[in-house]
């Protein structure tokens, strides 16, 4: 099921939490939602899951508009809210049963779905405990289990891995990837590495607007533009190498690398690569290349670049 968000605006008082935001998510895609606090991630997710209505614009989930057919949309969405609210006085298994019934899971299938979720989310030892007695990580798993219980077409996860230990994080990411192959997933996170590891496409929003969009490679390329290489040359005189590199036709700029050795940061001219000319130069001069690596902009840098005020 595709999600189409069209020009949505949501205002709290005088502030626009979401400002004319539009994007699409296709089936089988995992979309990562990034943004600083208060960027409008949670508001957008709440709007998609029919909890909040919008001032302007519309969202379509599988062709159903959230404002006109919320009942139909809700049936196909599994939603894990940000702070993962649960009924603390209920045992895990009763809670899952309650949610399954609410979601209209067929009576004969409820038992099967619950045991499946308990297996998938690793809740076997905890299923008869009251939710109050569970640790944060296990509660998060219960939250995930309730979102998945009716095998939804669309999964919306607001910071799904908070409170989990590293092993669990890896498991949950793996699970999300797996689900994301057939279903539509939107997840938000503060952890950039997580978004990079799980998402096919990344959307960075700031102050309710999209500031960057694309796969993590695309974002890097956008942020970086031209090629930057780190070149380390042994057995060469520092200044001579610097000058020779500068003379290469494809090179725009050469910098000494900060460690003070014979390493350089070589910025190429637009659209060309300097790797081959550098190699040929070194062969000609009889220099020995220790290192020749492209320098990639980190997602953190991009994030900071596009969301700074």
């Amino acid at each position: 099921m595709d999600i189409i968000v069209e020009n949505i605006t949501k205002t709290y008082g005088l502030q626009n939490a979401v400002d004319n935001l539009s994007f699409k998510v296709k089936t089988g895609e995992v979309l990562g939602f990034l943004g600083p606090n208060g960027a409008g991630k949670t508001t957008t997710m709440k709007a998609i899951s029919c909890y909040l209505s919008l001032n302007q614009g519309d969202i379509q989930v599988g062709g159903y508009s959230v404002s006109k057919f919320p009942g139909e949309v809700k049936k196909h969405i599994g939603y894990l809210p940000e702070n993962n609210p649960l009924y603390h006085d209920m045992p895990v298994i009763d809670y899952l049963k309650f949610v399954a019934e609410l979601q209209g899971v067929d009576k004969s299938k409820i038992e099967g779905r619950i045991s499946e979720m308990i297996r998938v989310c690793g809740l076997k030892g905890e299923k008869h405990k009251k939710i109050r007695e569970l640790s944060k990580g296990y509660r998060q798993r219960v939250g995930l289990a309730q979102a998945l219980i009716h095998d939804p077409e669309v999964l919306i996860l607001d910071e799904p891995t908070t409170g989990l230990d590293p092993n669990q994080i890896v498991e949950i990411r793996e699970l999300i990837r797996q689900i994301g192959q057939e279903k539509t997933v939107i997840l938000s996170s503060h952890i950039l590495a997580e978004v990079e590891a799980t998402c096919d496409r990344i959307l960075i929003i700031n102050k309710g607007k999209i500031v960057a969009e694309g796969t993590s490679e695309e974002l890097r390329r956008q942020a970086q533009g031209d090629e930057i290489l780190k070149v380390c040359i042994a057995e060469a005189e520092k200044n001579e190498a610097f000058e020779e590199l500068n003379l290469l036709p494809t090179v725009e700029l050469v910098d000494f690398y900060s460690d003070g050795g014979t390493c350089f940061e070589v910025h190429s001219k637009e659209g060309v690569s300097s790797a081959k000319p550098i190699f040929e130069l070194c062969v000609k001069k009889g220099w020995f290349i220790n290192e020749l690596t492209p320098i990639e902009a980190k997602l953190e840098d991009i994030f900071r670049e596009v969301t700074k005020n």
Partner: protein
Amino acid sequence: MKQVLIIMKRELQSVFDSLLAYIMIVIFLGFSGFFTWLYGADVFFVNQATLQSFFSIAYWTLFFFIPALTMKQIAEERKTGTIEMLLTKPISDWQILWGKFLAVLSLIAIALALTFPYYLTVWSLGPIDNGAVWSGYFGLLLISSAYISIGLFASSLTNNQIVAFLLALFIGIFFHILFGILASSFSGSASAIFNYLSLSTHYDAVSRGVIDSKDIIYFLSIIFLGIISAEAVMVKRNIN
């Protein structure tokens, strides 16, 4: 309707899983039993085989008892955020409210059913007017429904359970007694209006065995007004 029943079942499960339901029922039975059998204008004092003294004391105990049950219904869901979880499932505010309404009403019905031994005792003491007993219980269920919907409305207004409790009592006291007092201190049409608004007028009529459509309409209006207002408050999150 199915969704309403699912909510109702969960609510009942949760009160019976905690001590709340049992404490409430024991207090209710203890309180009304004390005044029905032992103290004041009790059955022996009246010297008639009637449950009238029970009905007039239950009128008061339910008034305090119900806000204590309804106070947490919406307030707590909002405070813990579970309302967000509920409302992103295929269910409407309206269905949630009715589910909670029916859950509290069933709890009251259970508490009232447990006073059945009172009836048996009085019945063994002398000739009892069965019609009056049934209409008395019916009247209690009607006022309970009215107070439940007022309580749900109060609970929807705030995140704080104590505030919800006091608010429910505050709104309730008007219907419970203040309108009656106002009716007797005015005359003419003002008196008639206040008299109509007073819950006790209608309760007295019903519990005497006179079930008039006028009284039923009165109770139904309070019930629906309470639930509709509660829904309006809940949906307010969407008003920009």
